[in-house]
């Protein structure tokens, strides 16, 4: 089994690119792989606690917590989050916050990297 590092920089939150990245993480964990998920830029939005689940909007807190319980390692870019007013106090439990070097370090021993940055 391998390690997959996914980076999602997509500003398209409220789109389905983050939904997509979370689904792929789940499929990889299901197959026994280890997954690191790094969110940067506007994708750091994923880290906020108490997002209200409406069916009209992507709501990822629940699937994310289930995957975290199964070992998904998920980290937000600290500077990108702070610049948006997402601070320690309103970060979802279990969601890590580090500098950008965390992402590079995660790629160091990753077997595969999928970087979703296009826009």
């Amino acid at each position, binding site marked *: 089994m391998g390690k997959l590092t996914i980076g999602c920089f997509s*500003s398209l939150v409220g789109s389905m690119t983050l939904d997509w990245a979370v689904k792929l993480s789940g499929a990889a964990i299901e197959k026994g792989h280890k997954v690191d998920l790094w969110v940067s830029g506007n994708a750091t939005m994923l880290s906020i606690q108490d997002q209200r689940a409406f069916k009209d909007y992507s709501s990822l807190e629940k699937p994310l917590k289930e995957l975290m319980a199964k070992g998904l390692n998920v980290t937000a870019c600290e500077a990108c989050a702070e610049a948006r007013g997402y601070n320690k106090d309103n970060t979802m439990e279990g969601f890590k916050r580090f500098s950008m070097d965390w*992402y590079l*370090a995660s790629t160091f021993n990753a077997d595969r990297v999928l*970087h979703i940055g296009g*826009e």
Partner: protein
Amino acid sequence: MATTKLGFIIQRPGYKSENQKLALTHAIASQSVEIYLDDDDEVICDVAFTGDGVLNCIKDQKALENYDLSSTESHIKMGLLCDLNILVCKEDLEKFGLSKSDIVIDAEEFGADVEVKVVPFEEINKMMDDVNHLLFF
């Protein structure tokens, strides 16, 4: 001792998305990645501008004056200061009628030793072959 090489490919113009700047700040973060790694292990990041992405390299960007925001130009210079290997596609510059004199080449004022390299796409292809992982922006 092991090295992981990453290739950052910037294919789109900047400012309408912050991804181009984030590509550079993430590549620059290779300077501090050793805190997570064993002694002598390292991550090296090469950066290439291709397609419309070469428009990011036009010099004299006045983002600070107009929007109180640091420019992509200043991020490229910071990359040079950190000795990043920064490539710009020659054919794409030519397509836009741009030459070396139109784009950011050095960061002498910060004391950077390396320069931006204008190279044929062939060489960017080679870089992409050489690295362990690719990150497209």
